[in-house]
């Protein structure tokens, strides 16, 4: 049976979340600041049109423009965005059991072709999400993930399409591919696009016509897959998005059974450190930390196993922060008088550090020194062997850091004290 990929992408997700609860700023430009209010991490279309850039410049540089045009400024409110994201994803999941949540504001759906025109289904998705949650989305549809991504881009760029575009039903698909620059193709990195430009390959159309041999040679297997995908041959399945691991787990069975909390603490801290290294290696941030412990299932003695999760207030790759979360989980599940065989740490809800909207988390580290510190520690350990430099939990006290969030909005949908007020007057 013929299938198509749908990419559903929330428009200016963070700004849109803020606007759901603020009818007074419905038509105003909005920017959202990073965790420490140091950078602009998201801007809606209107703010971008006024010259706001979200990538490189610190907030203070943009302040004159912000003041001049009366742009609304918010500190990032991850609790709100996380809850709104979950709502959107649950609605999407109703349309197809085959769903991949790609990031906080994007998901792929895989759907069979039936009686109904796919564009119609796309419109229904868009309408239902808008009605239920108040978040505007764009829907790109295509025979492969790469083409669905391109379709979504076209849907966003061309207001006439009404936010939904099926590239698969176009008679002259190449005409659309000619409009897409290679650097804007999913999976083509900046380095590759430079190389491609030098070879005179400028658009998605040019890349599609590249021979498989050359593609594989110049751009590795991922590049070859991209070329095939542009030609309508699916190579990336759902959840098979190449560069990213979706969860990181570090777990061991102990050589002998362990009974005390300090011993488990040391083990959990150590595995968390390992998991965090892996996290930074793949340039990801984690949002949720899970810890589990278990006794020996085949020993004739009292059995116990426990697991606990902790959702961090924001995605991070900061080892001390994650250790702290992991140990708070451990404390909750630890029961004395059992002898434990296994313990482990799993990091999930991973977000790419630099992906769009990954760079929204411009400061995933509590302070700028910490990122440098992390990198330094990783380097030292690579040279000197595991755990040569280590985080104390295990000894050294972790300083709880305070985030600067001067302009955070209410957590409208997750805290009773902060729900919106409606007037009966």
């Amino acid at each position, binding site marked *: 049976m013929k299938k198509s990929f749908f990419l559903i992408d929330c428009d200016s997700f963070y700004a849109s979340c803020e606007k759901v609860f603020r009818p007074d700023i419905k038509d105003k430009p909005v920017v959202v600041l990073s965790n420490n209010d140091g950078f602009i991490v998201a801007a809606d279309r209107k703010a971008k049109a006024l010259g706001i850039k979200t990538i490189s410049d610190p907030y203070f540089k943009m302040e004159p423009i912000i003041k001049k045009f009366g742009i609304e400024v918010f500190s990032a409110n991850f609790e709100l965005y996380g809850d709104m994201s979950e709502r959107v994803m649950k609605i999407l999941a109703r349309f197809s059991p085959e769903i991949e949540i790609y990031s906080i504001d994007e998901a792929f759906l895989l759907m069979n072709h039936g009686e109904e025109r796919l564009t119609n289904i796309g419109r229904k998705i868009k309408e239902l999400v808008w009605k239920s949650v108040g978040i505007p989305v764009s829907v790109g549809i295509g025979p492969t993930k790469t083409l669905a991504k391109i379709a979504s881009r076209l849907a966003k760029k061309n207001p006439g399409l009404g936010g939904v575009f099926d590239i698969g039903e176009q008679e002259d698909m190449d005409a659309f591919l000619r409009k897409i620059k290679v650097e804007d193709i999913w999976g083509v990195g900046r380095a590759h696009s430079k190389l491609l430009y030098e070879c005179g390959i400028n658009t998605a159309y040019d890349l599609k016509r590249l021979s498989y041999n050359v593609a594989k040679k110049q751009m590795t297997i991922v590049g070859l897959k991209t070329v095939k995908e542009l030609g309508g041959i699916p190579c990336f399945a759902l959840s098979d998005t190449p560069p990213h691991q979706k969860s990181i787990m570090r777990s061991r069975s*102990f050589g002998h059974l362990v009974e005390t909390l300090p011993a488990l603490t040391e083990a959990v801290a150590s595995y968390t450190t390992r998991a965090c290294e892996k996290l930074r290696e793949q340039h990801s941030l984690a949002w949720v930390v*899970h810890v589990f412990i278990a006794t020996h299932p085949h020993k004739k003695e009292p059995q116990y196993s426990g697991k606990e999760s902790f959702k961090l207030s924001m995605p991070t790759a900061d080892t001390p922060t994650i250790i702290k979360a992991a140990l708070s989980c451990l404390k909750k599940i630890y029961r004395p008088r059992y002898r434990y065989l296994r313990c482990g740490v799993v990091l999930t809800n991973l977000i790419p550090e630099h992906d769009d909207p990954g760079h929204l988390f411009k400061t995933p580290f509590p302070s700028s020194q910490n990122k440098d510190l992390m990198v330094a520690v990783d380097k030292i350990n690579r040279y000197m062997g595991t755990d040569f430099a280590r985080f104390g939990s295990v000894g050294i006290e972790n300083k709880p850091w305070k985030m600067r969030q001067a302009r955070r909005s209410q957590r409208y*949908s997750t805290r009773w004290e902060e729900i919106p007020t409606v007037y009966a007057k």
Partner: protein
Amino acid sequence: MTEKETKVTNIFGFEKKKTVDLPYYVEGVRAGFLFPADDFSEYKLDLNEYLIKHPSATFFVKVEGESMVDAGIHTGDILIVDRSITPVDGKIVIAAVDGEFVVKRLKHIEGKPFLISENPDYKPIEMEEGMELTIWGVVKNVIHEF
């Protein structure tokens, strides 16, 4: 201490914590004695299940003001708002009027939309030209503490 790598056997996704009361008799029958409540023991009353039909579209809001008292909505009450319900005539709705959320009853009179109060002391809001009316959601229930 020797350690050996173990494989990933189980990765549990993140879920909001929910307290679950385990039914007491779920483990089966002891010594041939059938406890008649066994068949029913798996049921518990869950207010969420009763009140919230569309969790993804449901929000809570707090009321300020007395214009809806005759509909049983008082200052300080919490309203359960379902955005996925279609705001037809006669529904109590949350509307965004001139940048503010209000709770009113939606009524069309001679084709024109009105936001009606449920308190004789308050006048209905007529949607005039230039005023912007957006229905944000439909009020399903009110939580009032006596």
